[in-house]
């Protein structure tokens, strides 16, 4: 059963390896988790998923694979003799917690009830509503939400939890999609790294030391020099929605590739063209917007700005005030773009549309003019050219 689960986890794009799978089995063998679905979920996530961005994907696979499987844990529990339960409870509850339980009623009485429940469980297993995950009224079993409940397999009251952990999908926002197949993009983005000699003097300069020592008549004279460090800062602006739908995937691959390459990377979203606001969280694009002027204030000209978008729209959306399809913009998109290019000398636009088609789209030609022909296709070669262009300052306006 677990092998299939493991394969499904991998199929969902979580880079779990055999070593990690084996360590999960090892942990199960070492009884790190007892029989509770929730504990098993935590343990599996702990050993198989190594990035919070994959948590959401894992949650989905888990929910799918183990749909109804809490029943399995129930059944396990039903077959467990009461003495074993008691032993386990004693092992897992601290004295203090046991005292608390006993304050609620007698410990023995609770166990007695537990035994009864187990018997009931055997006889009416189907559709029972006293058991884990099916309504949460039982004081027993993991996931039981009775405020006075014993939580088998773990200690502590948990009644506040209304949804199974993996169904809550709290990590949805961390998912930045597919690392798979980004290797090529990574290679190209690596060109962006610029090794600037800055920072503290902390590396022994051997040649300098030899020379200085020789000048010093053989007495040692140490010379230090600053260490190399990756100093590239990147501002990523991604077009979402509308005509970009079919390009979103490739953009997100670029995004997850870019993540690991820079010391500072900020990303924002826009729709079609840049206007007075951008946003950070696509799900809250209506409520949490950030002013473009603030963007200009916050990030200085050192930042390399990369636009990603197909720039396919009506030309009015660029040149006319009020041309935006989404809202009334007081100033034309072209004005905002001019502000961007004036502030950020290092700026490129990556376009997922094939380069051959650019000439047929007036809005692409317009954008090209605005950014000084610094639009490149979203391919390996295009990226190479974009990275070279990013290293240089802005090309003069006239070159076509």
């Amino acid at each position, binding site marked *: 059963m677990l092998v299939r689960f493991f394969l499904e986890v991998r199929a969902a794009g979580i880079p779990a390896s055999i070593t990690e799978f084996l*360590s999960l089995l090892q942990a199960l063998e070492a009884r790190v988790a007892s029989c509770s679905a929730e504990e098993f979920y935590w343990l599996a996530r702990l050993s198989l998923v190594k990035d919070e961005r994959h948590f959401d994907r894992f949650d989905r696979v888990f929910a799918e694979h183990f749909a109804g499987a809490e029943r399995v844990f129930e059944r396990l529990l039903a077959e467990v003799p009461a003495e074993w339960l008691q032993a386990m409870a004693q092992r*897992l509850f601290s004295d203090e917690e046991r005292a608390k339980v006993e304050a609620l009623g007698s410990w023995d009485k609770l166990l007695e009830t537990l035994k009864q429940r187990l018997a009931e469980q055997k006889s009416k297993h189907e559709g029972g509503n006293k058991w884990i995950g099916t309504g949460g009224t039982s004081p027993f079993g993991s996931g039981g939400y009775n405020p006075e409940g014993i939580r088998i397999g773990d*200690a502590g009251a948990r009644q506040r939890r209304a949804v199974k952990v993996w169904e809550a999908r709290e990590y949805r926002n961390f998912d930045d999609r597919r690392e798979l197949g980004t290797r090529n993009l990574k290679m190209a983005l690596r060109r962006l790294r610029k090794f600037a000699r800055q920072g503290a003097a902390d590396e022994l300069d051997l040649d300098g030391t030899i020379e200085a020592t020789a000048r010093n008549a053989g007495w040692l004279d140490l010379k230090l020099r600053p260490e190399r460090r990756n100093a590239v800062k990147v501002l990523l602006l991604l077009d979402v929605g509308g005509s970009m739908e079919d390009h979103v995937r490739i953009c997100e691959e670029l995004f997850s590739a870019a993540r690991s390459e820079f010391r500072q990377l900020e990303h924002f979203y826009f729709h079609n063209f840049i206007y007075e606001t951008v946003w950070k969280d696509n799900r809250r694009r209506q409520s949490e917007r950030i002013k473009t002027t603030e963007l200009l204030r916050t990030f200085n000209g050192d930042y390399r700005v990369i636009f990603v978008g197909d720039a396919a729209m009506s030309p009015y959306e660029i040149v006319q005030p009020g041309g935006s399809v989404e809202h009334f913009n007081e100033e034309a998109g072209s004005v905002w773009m001019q502000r961007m290019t004036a502030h950020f000398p290092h700026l490129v636009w990556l376009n997922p549309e094939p380069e051959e088609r650019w000439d047929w789209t007036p809005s692409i030609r317009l954008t090209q003019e605005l950014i000084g022909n610094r639009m490149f296709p979203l391919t390996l070669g295009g990226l190479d050219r974009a990275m070279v262009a990013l290293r240089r300052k802005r090309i003069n306006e006239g070159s076509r």
Partner: protein
Amino acid sequence: MTTQRFSGTDRYIATDDLRMAVNAAVTLARPLLIKGEPGTGKTQLAVEVAQALGRPLFEWHVKSTSKAQQGLYEYDAVSRLRDSQLGEARVADIRNYIVRGKLWEAFESEEQPVLLIDEIDKADIEFPNDLLRELDRMEFYVYETRELVRARHRPIIIITSNNEKELPDAFLRRCFFHYIRFPDEETMTRIVGVHYPSLKRELLAEALGAFYRVRETPGLKKKPSTSELLDWIKLLLAEDIPPEALRSEDPKKAIPPLYGALLKNEQDVHLFEQLVFLNRRAR
């Protein structure tokens, strides 16, 4: 080995999933990688685990200039060179110039220690890769003296990361991974209760309410975290602020007092004040 279990301490509230993570790491003697928002107690965890299990703690704080080798040992060639020029006797033995790192110290410990590798993402990208064998086999080779250093007891290794850089896959494969979520209001009440047990119930409820309102302000650059909340409450107590002052229903006092402890960024403070102002006008 005894099956000791970690279940939080009197100063540290560990959620069930965190407890499970620590116990799994202890049982299988595998490093535990901890991530989470700043101020959610990642570093503190190692201190508390060491205390709860009664183990010695070794802390290795990683900086952007740290090298993996520094955790093992360093050969101080420069002072040896200098000593040789001065004709000192200790020059003859290379051992005098081998400086032990934190990892070595932890390996030499008499009982199983807890080793904290703090903020591993601050270092160079290659840093974690250079520690693969050491974390896996818990041994390393000192080339200068040709000796093999092996851990007497596999240390409980807790590694924290702030996600500034991505860690290499080979490294991740060897660790357990846990992400500390920002605590919900109930857990938070317990955390505050542990730190300030004498706090008036009312004040606590009001403070938490105000805190979560500040946290939910859209567009904040740095959301206030647990450690900032604790600082703030300390200030509130010191200033003897009455609970009523924290209630935002009163439009004139809508900005919580001493909010400088919660918001650490000029722009955030500005944004917050603006929002409060707009709010007030809307009434």
